[in-house]
């Protein structure tokens, strides 16, 4: 064995080379759209199943806790529940009839209302591991038809857009992220503004001039400008307005419509077309959610 003492010159040289590589990397880095290298694809495909497994195991743990551990007063509840069951069985019969009718009507409706936008239901399996970004990872990717820049919504409202995809997973830049800027309309006054994330699970509404009659409680929706988000998706609600003495615009705080703390399933809207930018997608989105629940 030969002992090689550290050469400070080698260390400085290595440091310089890596520093140059890092600076070049920083200059090329975009926080608004991601590119997946083979290394990233490979590692994401290897590690994301672990994340997915952990996410799904939560349900099993909760179920185990609820069904086997936290069973106090079971016998007492059993008698009450038996009575409830007989009553519910009667209700179920009539509900089944309504469900069948609902399905028939839906089929009829889809015959006349064919949305060209594909809707993909996906589960949230992870969050970005850095503090300065608000990104979620979904369990569906390009092999399921998801593309970058596709809008992501829930029945509550807008979540964000797809930042990068791998064959089976995709990362979504949420509206809570400061790099995501959403062109919005104030529903009541039709005022245009830009919503940006501010890290603490809230957003700010920018570029609203002081003479605009916006109020606390006003609802915001996507303006349909920019080609990412279809028009009319709920974004949030104004919760605070402060008027500084200086400047031309208002400082407006926005509570997102989506409860990101309870985000489990989302819908990815792919292949946006020109027609959709002027459509209300939430009606059809709600349909997909309902359908998915029925399938479950």
């Amino acid at each position: 064995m030969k002992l090689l003492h550290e050469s400070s010159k080698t260390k400085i040289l290595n440091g310089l080379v890596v520093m140059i590589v890092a600076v070049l990397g920083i200059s090329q880095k975009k926080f608004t759209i991601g590119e997946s290298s083979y290394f990233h694809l490979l590692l994401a495909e290897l590690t994301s199943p672990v994340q997915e497994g952990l996410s799904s195991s939560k349900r099993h743990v909760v179920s185990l806790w609820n069904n086997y551990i936290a069973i106090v007063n079971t016998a007492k509840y059993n008698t009450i529940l038996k009575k409830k069951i007989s009553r519910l069985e009667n209700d179920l019969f009539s509900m089944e009839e309504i469900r069948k009718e609902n399905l028939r009507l839906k089929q009829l409706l889809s015959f006349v209302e064919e949305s060209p936008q594909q809707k993909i239901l996906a589960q949230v399996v992870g969050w970005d591991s850095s503090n300065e970004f608000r990104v979620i990872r979904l369990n569906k990717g390009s092999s399921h038809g998801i593309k970058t820049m596709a809008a992501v919504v829930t029945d509550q409202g807008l979540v964000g857009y797809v930042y990068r995809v791998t064959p089976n997973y995709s990362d979504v830049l949420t509206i809570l992220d400061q790099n995501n800027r959403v062109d919005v309309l104030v529903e009541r006054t039709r005022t245009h503004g830009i919503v940006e994330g501010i890290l603490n699970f809230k957003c700010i509404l920018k570029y609203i001039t002081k003479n605009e009659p916006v109020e606390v409680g006003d609802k915001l929706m996507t303006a349909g400008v920019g080609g990412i988000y279809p028009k009319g998706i709920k974004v949030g609600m104004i919760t605070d307005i402060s008027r500084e003495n200086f400047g031309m615009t208002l400082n407006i705080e926005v509570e997102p419509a989506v409860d990101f703390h309870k985000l489990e399933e989302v819908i990815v809207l792919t292949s946006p077309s020109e027609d959709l930018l002027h459509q209300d997608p939430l009606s059809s989105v709600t349909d997909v959610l309902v359908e998915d629940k029925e399938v479950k």
Partner: protein
Amino acid sequence: MRFRLSDIFVSYALTILLLLCFEVTTATILPLLGWYEYRLTFNVIVIIFFAIRLNMSFVPWMILGLQLIHSVFSIEGWAVGTFAGLGVMILASYLKDLIHLTNALMTMIVAIVFQTFWYLLVTFIICLKISSFDSFTSILWSFLPSSLFLSLIAPLIFWSLEKIWKTSNDFSHSGVEI
């Protein structure tokens, strides 16, 4: 500190495995438990350990490798963290004589000092990239709770890494044995 090349590979592979566990914990397990507000950026602590404790010429490349792993779990990417990691390494080389990780408290203090430096660099770069310094303080502020928590558990992480890298408290010798 002397290292055999074969040991370096094993230690580095174990460090990557540990980092992967940390990243999955931060990205999935903690949010599942309801911890959404702050992310525990374990990669920062691991890189601080590399910068302080490993005196090898190719530590910059190792930092780059760790950041590449981190980039899978964060859109931050590898470049910003690598730059910050090298900054920490340079700072550590200047403060080498002052750093004595003799007890847990010292480790916590060192961890918070270097984390603060790291976050200042990262926040500055991000603000430059997004062409807005409006959110400089809010980004920096968001780091505080997680960096405090990470500093508290830094002795444990450092202890694990010391075991992986078999480093001693002696900084006086440096060299690579192959």
